């Protein structure tokens, strides 16, 4: 691989813990382009944090290699640490320093000043500026998140790693945070962001669906949706729970999952008569106000399809 390659490149990256007893990530191959907003989508324990810690040189890989903006994660780790920004999943600023002190501290660590980098963080900084004398530990969750993002950006990193920035945050703050990322994206920063919320995938240029340490699929969100190979139906009835039970028990049901007030259902096979036979079955079971529509899958549908079509290491013991 050429050292001029910007962005992120992983080749067969693997890491296990407890002397190999627990595989955290296995043979990760990934190419993220410069300036891309790339999402790592998967549940807790999928390996998202391990991958981030390998790429930010906080962990050493067992096997494989990776470069970040052309820098090797093993040989050039010192340079990587100077050029990347990292916001860990757990709030890790100094709680007993004020907002201004935290910013100054991180700027100084990187031999720079807040004022010389203010343009990059300006839009986010103005929102926490009224609290600049408040200790970080006294900030609200949303404000802590904004301060952490400012601190991760203070040295003008070319690559930004954000580990689950929206976990445990309500819908309103999550929308606001993704708005900020869209702003940073226009500045040409490469962003790798992880999240367990499948709906956030749509905000990324491309995503990797990760489960049990392995990447199941990489594509644009639209590309992932288009590669879903089955016909998916949304079904609704008066009694959702009974509909779910009856649909699961139906002999031609391939998969059936609750999605809010609907069920998302696929059949074994693509015979056009399947829908009619299924509806007749439901009427016989006494369901009322039935509707069924062919729909495009969501990222979550795709994720569950991929989970079920692989040997399931995560839910198998």
């Amino acid at each position, binding site marked *: 691989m050429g050292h001029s390659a910007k962005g992120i490149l992983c080749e067969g990256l693997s890491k296990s813990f407890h002397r190999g007893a627990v595989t955290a990530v296995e043979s990760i191959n990934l190419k993220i382009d410069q300036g891309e907003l790339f999402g790592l989508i998967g549940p807790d324990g999928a390996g998202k944090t391990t991958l981030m810690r390998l790429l930010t040189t906080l962990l050493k890989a067992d096997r494989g290699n990776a470069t970040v903006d052309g820098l090797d994660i093993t040989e050039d780790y010192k340079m990587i640490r100077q050029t990347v920004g990292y916001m860990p999943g757990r709030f890790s600023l100094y709680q007993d320093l004020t907002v201004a002190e935290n910013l100054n501290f991180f700027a100084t660590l990187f031999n720079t000043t807040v004022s010389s980098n203010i343009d990059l963080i300006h839009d986010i900084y103005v929102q926490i500026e009224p609290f600049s004398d408040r200790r970080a530990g006294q900030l609200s969750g949303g*404000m802590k998140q904004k301060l952490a993002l400012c601190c991760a950006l203070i040295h003008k990193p070319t690559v930004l790693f954000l580990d689950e920035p929206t976990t445990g945050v*309500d819908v309103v703050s999550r929308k606001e945070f993704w708005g900020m990322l869209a702003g940073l994206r226009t500045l040409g920063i490469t962003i790798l962001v992880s999240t367990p919320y499948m709906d956030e995938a749509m905000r990324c240029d491309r995503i990797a669906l990760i*489960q049990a340490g392995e990447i199941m699929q990489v594509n644009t969100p639209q590309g992932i949706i288009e590669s879903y190979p089955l016909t998916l139906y949304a079904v609704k009835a008066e009694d959702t729970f009974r509909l779910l039970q009856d649909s699961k028990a139906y002999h031609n049901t391939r998969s059936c999952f609750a999605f*809010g007030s609907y069920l998302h259902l696929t059949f074994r096979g693509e015979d056009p008569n399947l829908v009619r036979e299924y509806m007749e079955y439901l009427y016989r079971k006494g369901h009322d106000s039935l509707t069924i529509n062919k729909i495009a899958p969501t990222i979550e549908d795709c994720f569950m399809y991929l989970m079920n079509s692989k040997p399931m290491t995560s839910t198998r013991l």
Partner: protein
Amino acid sequence: MTSDITIKTLRLSKAYGHFKAVDQISFEVYAGEIFGFLGANGAGKTTAMRMLCGLLEPSSGEASVAGFDVYRRPEAIKKRIGYMSQKFSLYEDLTILENIRFFGGIYGLTYAQIREKGKLLTAELGLEAQAHSLVGSLPLGWKQKLAFSVAVLHDPKIVFLDEPTGGVDPITRRQFWDLIYAAAARGVTIFVTTHYMDEAEYCDRVSIMVDGRMVAMNSPEQLKLQYKAGSMEEVFYQLARKAQRSD
């Protein structure tokens, strides 16, 4: 769901100085109901839940849980409720059976009851072969399902679930809701918070707190009609974006 009331509050409040963490909330929850307790960060959900669990004395207002007054009988309430959250569930360095024995003991079950419940629970979850494995070695989804089963080990009237499915994979998240439905069908009242808005749709009724007050409470269907929204996420967004405070 029946018409028996298991939780009842009237102008329940908790103030810290001038700060009204929970501001005069009034509601009733029925036996076997799945009650979704939603709110923005810092809206006062945790404070309200702590009062209902008998862990925090209210400043004013009334509340009774499982028929007991929260001021006078908090210990009686604790015996009759179950609780689990994303953060606290089970002891990782104890085995599945040891956890069952521990929590069964805490809730005053006899040895015979614990043995029987332990067998039943591991069989239901298909965990017989792992009964002597450390909980820490289980995948997160299994831990959360196990934690739920342990939280209802003593047949509580009400179980409080604080973001039980946070970070869990989408298939396990739905299996977890199967457990919730099964418990509700047995008559257990489910009081649940979540950040997944699709899960709000699985509740019989949903309440939404903003800035310490309860600004909406109804079935998901009615709320969507009332706010002319296509999903609970839109309902929540309309209400919560007006919030003045966050946690």
